[in-house]
């Protein structure tokens, strides 16, 4: 996918894999087959080096000091903001650094909801808790109604219900760009058009989309867009909230402290311009620099190639998985319209036991409800196992997974 010596797809993939130090380790004496990138992705050397270089050479606080290190640190921090902005098709001053997707959505919700005078918040049944619980709780506190759009039997969002639900009472539509459980890619642009026509704001959870799809916030037409560093091959503890410039300018800060103020008197405080207004306190400087490096890494490979590679892996994996006796895929059955988060159940075996046996084969998958209890409840399953595909996933990884799944059935058979 990047510049490989022989230019072949296989050579490209080997070159990409070589950028990730963790992929060369073994687990239980077996080659590590990392199929848990939807929970958190491994890190390329470019990200690790950028953070290491910052801590080793240029470390200082940002925005305050006038000495050389403070200048370097501030420049690196703001350059990282610009890198994230470029990745999302936004302007640098529209990117707020946060602690992650959860932090981003909380800032958005805590800033917006108190300004609404009643009305409805629309979410979907396939939301991660990070884009569900905060709306549910704030709706209760502020006397608003929470409208939950269901998922259809083919694991896509029920757009007929979405169309019917969005109306004059709608204040916010909050939805995931791609589901962390089902893998379903939602029609973000269409939902944003519906919301805009109704005068409602849109908040998109892009945690699962940014590592896999080309995201252009202007093209999507959303008001706010949240993502995490660690799912896009960057570090943990850092994320971004994109906000349309004029929206951020009239949003009040969600929390308070230093660095975010224009002027403070005994009686009043005026706010700094966005994005500083939403970044009180010393930020996660190294995390931001790492996320910026991850954004450059993704752009250097290109989302066209990333999506093509991952679609190939998903198209390879789905029929092989479906052929495992007793296995049911919980999500769209075709590779189109979905990302490579592939959840499944194996008849008669608890997902935790599936994951533990796979671990013995060096295969890392996630088991549980993936922070989406309302969805699992609606689907009528307690929990699922999830194998998720990343930029470095190979067909051989899928072969190892499928073979290991047969041994799960032997143990529990």
């Amino acid at each position, binding site marked *: 996918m990047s510049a490989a010596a022989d230019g072949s797809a296989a050579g490209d993939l080997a070159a990409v894999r070589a950028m990730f130090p963790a992929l060369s380790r073994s687990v239980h004496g077996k080659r590590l087959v990392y199929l848990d990138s939807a929970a958190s992705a491994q890190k390329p050397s470019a990200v690790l080096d950028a953070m290491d270089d910052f801590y080793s050479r240029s470390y200082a606080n940002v925005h305050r000091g006038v000495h050389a290190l403070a200048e370097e640190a501030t420049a690196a921090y703001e350059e990282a903001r610009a890198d994230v902005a470029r990745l999302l098709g936004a302007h640098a001053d529209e990117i707020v650094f946060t602690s992650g997707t959860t932090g981003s959505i909380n800032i958005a919700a805590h800033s917006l909801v108190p300004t609404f005078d009643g009305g409805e918040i629309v979410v979907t049944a396939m939301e991660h808790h990070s884009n569900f619980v905060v709306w549910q709780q704030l709706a209760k506190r502020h006397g608003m109604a929470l409208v939950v759009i269901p998922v259809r039997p083919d694991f896509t969002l029920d757009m007929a219900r979405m169309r019917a639900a969005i109306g004059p009472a709608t204040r916010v539509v909050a939805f995931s760009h791609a589901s962390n459980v089902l893998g379903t890619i939602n029609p973000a642009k269409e939902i944003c058009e519906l919301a805009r026509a109704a005068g409602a704001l849109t908040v998109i959870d892009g945690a699962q989309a940014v590592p896999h799809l080309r995201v252009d916030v202007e093209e999507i037409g959303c008001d706010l867009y949240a993502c995490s560093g660690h799912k896009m091959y960057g570090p943990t503890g850092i994320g971004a909230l994109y906000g349309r410039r004029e929206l951020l300018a009239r949003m009040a800060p969600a929390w308070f402290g230093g660095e975010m103020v224009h002027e403070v008197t005994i009686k009043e405080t005026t706010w700094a311009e966005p994005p500083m207004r939403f970044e009180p306190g010393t930020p996660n400087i190294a995390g931001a620099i790492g996320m910026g490096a991850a954004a450059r890494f993704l752009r250097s490979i290109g989302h066209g190639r990333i999506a093509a590679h991952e679609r190939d892996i998903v198209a390879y994996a789905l029929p092989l998985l479906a052929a495992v006796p007793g296995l049911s895929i919980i999500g769209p059955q075709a590779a189109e319209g979905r990302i490579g988060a592939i959840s499944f159940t194996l008849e008669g075996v608890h997902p935790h036991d599936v994951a533990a046996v796979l671990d*013995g084969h060096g295969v890392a998958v996630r088991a549980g409800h993936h922070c989406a209890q309302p969805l699992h409840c609606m689907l009528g399953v307690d929990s699922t196992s999830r194998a998720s595909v990343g930029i470095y996933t190979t067909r051989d990884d899928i072969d190892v997974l499928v073979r290991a799944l047969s041994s799960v059935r032997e143990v*529990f058979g």
Partner: protein
Amino acid sequence: MSGNGAGRSAGGVDRDQVGEGELTQEQLLYRENILDHYRNPRNRRRVPDATASARGKNPLCGDEIEMFLVVEHGKIADAAFEGKGCAISQASASMLTRKLKGMEAAHALGLGQESMTGMLRIPIGVVRMKCAMLALRTAQDAIRKAGMPVADGAGKQEDDQ
């Protein structure tokens, strides 16, 4: 897997090494004994006249346990459970009910991690310790909710970290 630093668990297997050595996970994690308790759980039944009962949930993976205890004169005369979940959670509940029968309720309140790993006799990492501990925590919850008198000093945790 090395989160609690405590190193050795019952059975002499170094917990800190769970991710490194060549372990046949099927053999190690699902010893025949555990699979036997999972497939043929002992004391898996509801007890309508239980004097102490509680429900427990492991939100991590959705394990659910309901424990039923009959406590007479401070002693556990009967212990049973209902539930669904992974092999570790269900087998540990099955094993625990056998261990609890005949035990002083106050003593049961003092049981901790080592009691469960001692019965399971496999290395348990920090994540799956929640599965292994669910039944015990639920049983202790049931005893506390029923307001059982705690005898002199027996209520303190004997082996939790």
